[in-house]
């Protein structure tokens, strides 16, 4: 929508570069160039503020379907038919009747016993390829440490109290001091805490919020997902004064508050050179943060290590909900690519903690009677948590021959022996996934249970589909000579044992899985192009209030033109690539429910719809629910301490909420004890407050 303005921006910029090359007095010119560049950046920003229209949802969907062109939208905007996205108002424009909330009735969850200090040593598998938070390569395993778990939003979901009040989760304040929600106008008003500061000392203001929208809507960041997310899920941002703003959403979905409070403003002053070369220019610049940890230039030793340093002047260090957290003075990351090597570094005391989620690590490689554990030098913790679960299971491509038959799909359900895998391979630690969306609290269907392994029921189902005879290898064949054989693909090399076990078990029911183990990228490509028969894969899901159905089950994500005008399946339809509908489900009834679910603004109704859809999906039987890990497990050296309750309910790992600390002087003491043979009381803790019954 701003092609012209970008070209206008580029031309003088390139001219400037040419002039710069021939200059004798470089410094003066460089600083002049920089000044000019900053002026351009501000001009571009202001142009965006002035021209960016707010698209109503139906218009946006029409645009996505290609029914409306970009030019037409530009024309509509120029004609003033569209509301602006960015509005600069005055404090007088604020509604008078706002009821401000600040979540102050919520309990704090960190331990007052926590002590500041020390260095936490840990490792990452790959060195981060950039310090940018968006754009190419930014979504790395290091990102949580400069963004997700460290940066403060305006507010944050309370990680212990997961109740839903008035259609929202409970939020405690971060950068915001108070907020107010108006469901009628689908708007959330926010007042920023006047004490809020960036790590470089500058104030955090409503301008940073406005800039954030501009930044994420800009094509210069090379992040289409963000471009889409920040222009489709929000329709207006209004600045009232330095510390007050409001954001309006296209629909008043449940947890509307979260959609605004979870936003993280960006320091506009830092991005004063924002331009088309953003990706390269900001590659290794650490963005000033509202959070406790900064990355100092001298700690970036590329390819080898990187470290977070606690900002001693962090503005929120005594703020309720934020105090007693982020206790380590430094967090040091070295690069260890190999898991086995990582584990050995941990045993050697070079790394402070190690994840023990896999049973063989928990039971065999670091058993309770291991010398270091028995002597109390290394502690083992199991923490049961409660959060949406990754969807590990078999995703069947129902557009494939034979798999398009529901009886065969049901038979595959009964022939998949997850029970044995859970009992004998995962040693009873993991539990069976029940539905397609487990862990969403009251949005998860309470009664549906996945079909259990049952050879008889599987044979019956296959017989209904015409598979009654077995060939010489024991695989079922039908009277046309087709074998009941499917390719079972996965990109999880470390979980391939599961598939080989399941393969042997499925043969009991005359079903042959041809196991195919690809590398992660190739497997993902295969399933995105819908080339799979059956894929063993999982979507990772965030701690959202309710599951998403449109992405995975709506027919527009299954086929191009799934149905003809009269509602019958289109005989020429082709699977649609690059969508998350891996099962190729195209069901008119389900589509209608999904559309109602998407448009619904009532949690009650959405829940009922979610249950109904879940039941349809159960009958459709193209997803075999796999397993759920109801906890996380970790080991740590004895000097690491945690609160009495260890971690919070929705936490997925010990560095997500930063509740731990290092006991002063303990590291030396423990390392000395390791040499001298001294013993401590062993620490093997299981925190099962949130264990499902």
């Amino acid at each position, binding site marked *: 929508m701003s092609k012209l303005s970008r070209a206008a921006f580029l031309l003088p910029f390139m001219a400037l570069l040419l002039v710069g090359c021939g200059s004798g007095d470089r410094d003066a010119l460089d600083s002049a160039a920089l000044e000019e560049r900053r002026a351009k950046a501000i001009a571009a920003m202001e142009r965006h503020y002035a021209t960016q229209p707010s698209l109503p949802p139906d218009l946006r969907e029409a645009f996505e379907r290609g029914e409306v062109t970009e030019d037409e939208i530009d024309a509509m905007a120029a004609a003033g038919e569209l509301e602006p996205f960015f509005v600069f108002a005055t404090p007088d424009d604020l509604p008078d009747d706002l009821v401000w909330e600040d979540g102050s009735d919520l309990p704090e969850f960190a331990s007052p016993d926590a002590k500041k200090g020390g260095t936490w040593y840990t490792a990452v598998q790959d060195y981060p390829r950039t310090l940018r938070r968006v754009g190419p390569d930014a979504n790395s395993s290091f990102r949580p440490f400069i963004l997700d778990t460290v940066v403060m939003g305006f507010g944050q979901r309370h990680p212990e109290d997961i109740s839903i009040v008035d259609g929202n989760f409970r939020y405690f304040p971060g950068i915001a001091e108070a907020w107010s929600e108006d469901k009628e106008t689908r708007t959330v008003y926010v007042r920023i805490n006047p004490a809020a500061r960036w790590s470089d000392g500058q104030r955090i203001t409503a301008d940073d919020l406005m800039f954030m929208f501009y930044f994420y809507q800009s094509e210069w960041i090379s992040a289409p997902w963000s471009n889409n997310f920040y222009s489709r899920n929000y329709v207006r941002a209004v600045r009232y004064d330095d510390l007050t703003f409001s954001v309006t959403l296209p629909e008043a979905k449940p947890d509307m508050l979260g959609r605004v409070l979870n936003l993280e403003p960006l320091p506009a002053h830092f991005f004063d050179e924002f331009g088309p070369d953003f990706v390269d220019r900001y590659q290794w610049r650490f963005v000033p943060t509202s959070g406790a940890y900064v990355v100092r230039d001298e700690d970036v030793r590329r390819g080898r290590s990187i470290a977070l340093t606690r900002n001693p002047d962090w503005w929120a260090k005594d703020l309720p909900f934020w105090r007693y957290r982020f206790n380590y003075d430094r967090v040091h990351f070295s690069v260890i690519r190999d898991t086995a090597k990582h584990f050995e570094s941990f045993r050697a005391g070079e790394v402070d903690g190690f994840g023990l989620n896999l049973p063989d690590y928990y039971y*065999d490689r670091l058993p309770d009677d291991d010398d270091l554990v028995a002597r109390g030098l290394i502690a083992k913790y199991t923490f049961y948590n409660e959060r949406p679960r990754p969807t590990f299971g078999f995703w069947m491509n129902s557009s494939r021959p034979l798999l398009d038959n529901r009886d065969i799909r049901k038979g595959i359900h009964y022939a998949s022996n997850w029970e044995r895998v859970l009992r*004998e391979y995962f040693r009873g630690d993991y539990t069976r996934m029940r539905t397609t969306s487990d862990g969403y609290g009251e949005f998860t269907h309470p009664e549906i249970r996945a079909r259990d392994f049952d050879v008889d029921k599987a044979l019956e189902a296959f017989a209904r589909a015409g598979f009654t005879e077995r060939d010489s290898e024991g695989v079922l064949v039908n009277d046309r000579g087709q074998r009941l054989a499917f*390719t079972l693909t996965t990109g999880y090399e470390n979980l*391939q044992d599961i*598939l*080989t076990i399941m393969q042997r078990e499925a043969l*009991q*029911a005359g079903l042959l899985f041809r196991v195919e*183990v*690809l590398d992660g990228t190739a497997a993902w490509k295969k399933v995105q192009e819908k080339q799979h028969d059956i894929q063993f894969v999982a979507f990772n899901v965030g701690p959202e209030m309710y599951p998403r159905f449109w992405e995975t089950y709506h027919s527009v994500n299954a086929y191009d033109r799934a149905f003809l005008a009269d509602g019958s399946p289109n005989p020429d339809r082709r699977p649609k690539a690059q969508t998350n509908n891996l099962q190729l489900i195209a069901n008119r009834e389900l589509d209608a429910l999904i559309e109602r679910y998407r448009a619904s603004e009532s949690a009650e109704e959405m829940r009922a719809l979610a249950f109904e859809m879940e039941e349809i999906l159960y009958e459709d039987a193209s997803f075999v629910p796999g397993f759920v890990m109801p906890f996380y497990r970790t080991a740590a050296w004895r000097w690491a301490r945690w609160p009495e309750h260890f971690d919070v309910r929705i936490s997925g790992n010990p560095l997500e909420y930063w509740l731990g600390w290092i006991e002063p002087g303990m590291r030396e003491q423990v390392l000395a004890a390791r040499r001298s043979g001294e013993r401590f009381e062993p620490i093997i803790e299981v925190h099962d407050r949130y264990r499902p019954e």
Partner: protein
Amino acid sequence: MRLNPLTLRKLKRFREIRRGYFSFLILIGLLGLSAVSELIINDRALAVRYQGEWSFPTYGPVELGSVYGLEGTDGRRPVDYRRLKEHFDAAGAGDRVIMPLIPWGPYYNDAVGGILRAEAPNFERGHYLGTDTTGRDILARLVYGFRTAMLFALAFTALTYLIGVAIGCAMGYFGGLFDLLFQRVIEIWSNVPFLYMVIIIFSVIPATFSVGARIGILLAIMVLFSWTGLTYYMRTATYKEKSRDYAAAAQVLGAGTSRIIFRHILPNTVATMVTFVPFTVVGAITAITALDFLGFGLPPPTPSIGEMLKQGTANLTTAPWIVSSAFAALVVILLLVTFIGEAVREAFDPRQFTLYK
């Protein structure tokens, strides 16, 4: 068949080199045993006596439980002969199941103590080398893996020789433009990185192909990229022999091209070529092991030494028996082949003594 006295002398000399000769006998013995490994290491019964009738299920089609009077679900699924044996023994009706010496198949997941994990060698249960991480018998997987690797290596050797010798010989004999062109082709072809090609090509083969077909394709790809090495030797050997007087004499006597090549030149180059055979075999075993180790070889759960090495290195501290079994097996095979190779080379060397100047 009457052998050339020269060849007989070479064979005699080979027998006299005891290390190589015994290695040869051992390897042949192992190959022979592995050809019938279904009868020795298997989870299917050798013989079953049911209601007075004997049956021999080893090589037959998969049998369902109903064949032996099992009822309910057990009657409708493939027989687990070990459980059938327990069932017959408990019933005491005179029915019998005779299991092979080592009653484990390469795919059977045996949950010792109800848990699937790597178990140390356990003589009582019959896991003489222990089990791998999903409770499969290591000895069984080694034996079946060895068989696949050896068959693969032999087929590979035969095919590369067929192509390499044919083209090399043609280049040496015809010379001229043909030789010039083919040399360039080979130079280019041999610079294609073989391992990457295998990985790339193998990654696009659809998984619907059976294991046999996949092995065939792997073989074809490897042969396609491996025959070039031989042509150099063959070409030189042919050049040398062709310029000898006896070749010229044969030509003068009116012998045709094919007669000269097959009756005169080829038999005289055999000595050179045969010495490379064992090393080609070693190369093929190493290559397929490496591919399996990297995860680009045979599809899981096909037993293979490379896959076992990979598992072993990942479980070095907790299950050292996996890697030590696989490693020992690999070392033994490669040593045997190398010993044979040395002996063959020595036996076929026309000079008994070599003087270096």
